[in-house]
């Protein structure tokens, strides 16, 4: 049993008249990892920005440690990173790296726009993941552009954060990276969501990316499997 870090109830988001998703409900407890999977444009980035309060939902609510995001963010350490494209190119790498916990992430004096995409991605991740203490980690396509070494570092770091009690939410297309890390999966398909527990899909052992891909394909083709859409039983925080 774990305490709920992030609680989402009947969440709906839309841009103008275009509905992005609705009725999204899940809980993430301490030491749990949720993988958000969906096709391009399914609303993964929108969901993650709603979780951190950058977007207001049209319906439903988000609670971080029982509080609305605007109140919770100053009390709960949250690492949020939406990808290297969100880094301002004119800033120097060393200066950006100092925005985490104050320690130097890099001594590189070049401007961010002069760095390779993967280096920017790694710098952005190291900056936000350097914050202490971290109660919640929310990352959007975190493995994008990383070389194998950096990708391994990221996976190991996320495992450590999760095992130390942080709730982790990851949106990614890279099912093989998610499969080894997540306990829960939120599949966004046609404006709806389905919550899948890893142990339901692979009761005998570790969940493989192939199984995950198969479930996702079935959902997209309309053959909805009988899966729980209710949050896993966790105690209220």
């Amino acid at each position: 049993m774990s305490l709920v870090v992030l609680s989402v109830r009947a969440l709906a988001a839309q841009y103008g008249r275009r509905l992005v998703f609705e009725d999204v409900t899940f809980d993430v407890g301490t030491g749990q990892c949720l993988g958000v999977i969906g096709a391009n444009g399914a609303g993964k980035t929108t969901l993650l920005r709603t979780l951190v309060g950058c977007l207001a939902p049209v319906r439903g609510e988000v609670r971080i440690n029982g509080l609305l995001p605007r109140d919770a963010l100053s009390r709960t350490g949250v690492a949020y990173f939406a990808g290297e494209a969100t880094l301002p190119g004119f800033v120097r790498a060393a200066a950006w790296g100092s925005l985490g916990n104050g320690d130097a992430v890099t001594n590189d004096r070049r401007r961010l726009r002069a760095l390779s995409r993967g280096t920017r991605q790694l710098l952005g991740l190291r900056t936000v993941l350097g914050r202490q203490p971290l109660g919640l980690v929310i990352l959007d396509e975190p493995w994008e552009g990383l070389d194998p070494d950096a990708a391994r570092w990221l996976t190991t770091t996320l495992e450590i954060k999760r095992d130390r009690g942080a709730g982790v939410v990851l949106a990614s297309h890279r099912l093989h990276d998610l499969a080894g890390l997540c306990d829960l999966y939120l599949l966004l398909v046609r404006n709806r969501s389905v919550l899948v527990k890893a142990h339901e899909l692979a009761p005998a052992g570790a969940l493989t990316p192939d199984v995950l891909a198969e479930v996702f394909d079935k959902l997209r083709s309309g053959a909805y499997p009988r899966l729980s859409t209710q949050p896993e039983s966790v105690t209220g925080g």
Partner: protein
Amino acid sequence: MTALVRALKFFTVVPPLPRLMVYSFMIVTVASAVSMSLDASRTPIASVPILVLQVFATSTGFTAHARRGHYDVLLTEGIGRLRTALTHWLMSSAPGLASWVVVAIAEWTIAGTTNALATGSITALVAVSTIPWGTTVALPRFSGAIGWMLLCVMAATLTPHGITFDQDYGAIGPGWLSVLGTMVFPVGLVGADVQSVVALALPLMVSAVSMMAALIWIARTPLPLEAAQ
């Protein structure tokens, strides 16, 4: 207090103003001081270029940067949008305000006058430091400044006698066109020790309203990533 320090540190790393703009302020400030030292009678007008530069400097466009995710680190740290926005405004207007202080000190040292601190001058400085920031908050950088310049040119060319503040308004007070002039072309207030509350009220009121509207906009507007809509 910690949040303010954190926000100040962030905007030192991610300055709202391009470095070129800061260098421009330095150059203009030195040029103003040199101009005053060569001819002390030019003290009010010599500081006008700082105001014009300030109009462009404060037209920073907060939301455009926020929607690119540039301020995510700060916004997800619990600093709060309003505090983030106010710090952004402070850092946008700081170089212009600092230049003005330097010019005021230079003027007092060189000419022994305090035109830069006259009521009209301070009102003009407040107007150019707030209105462009407020009006550009949801627009691309420099939009407010370009709009204001266009308004000045229209007022100067499309009206019979131009719209500018008449400093010799006499005992009956400034006419409504002259009061409007304080708004359209606040630079006309520089050096004037304006006693008329009416003349100063319009630019100060518009400054307050534009800042309030901008802050309300920032507090309420969604900040999706540009590529995720």
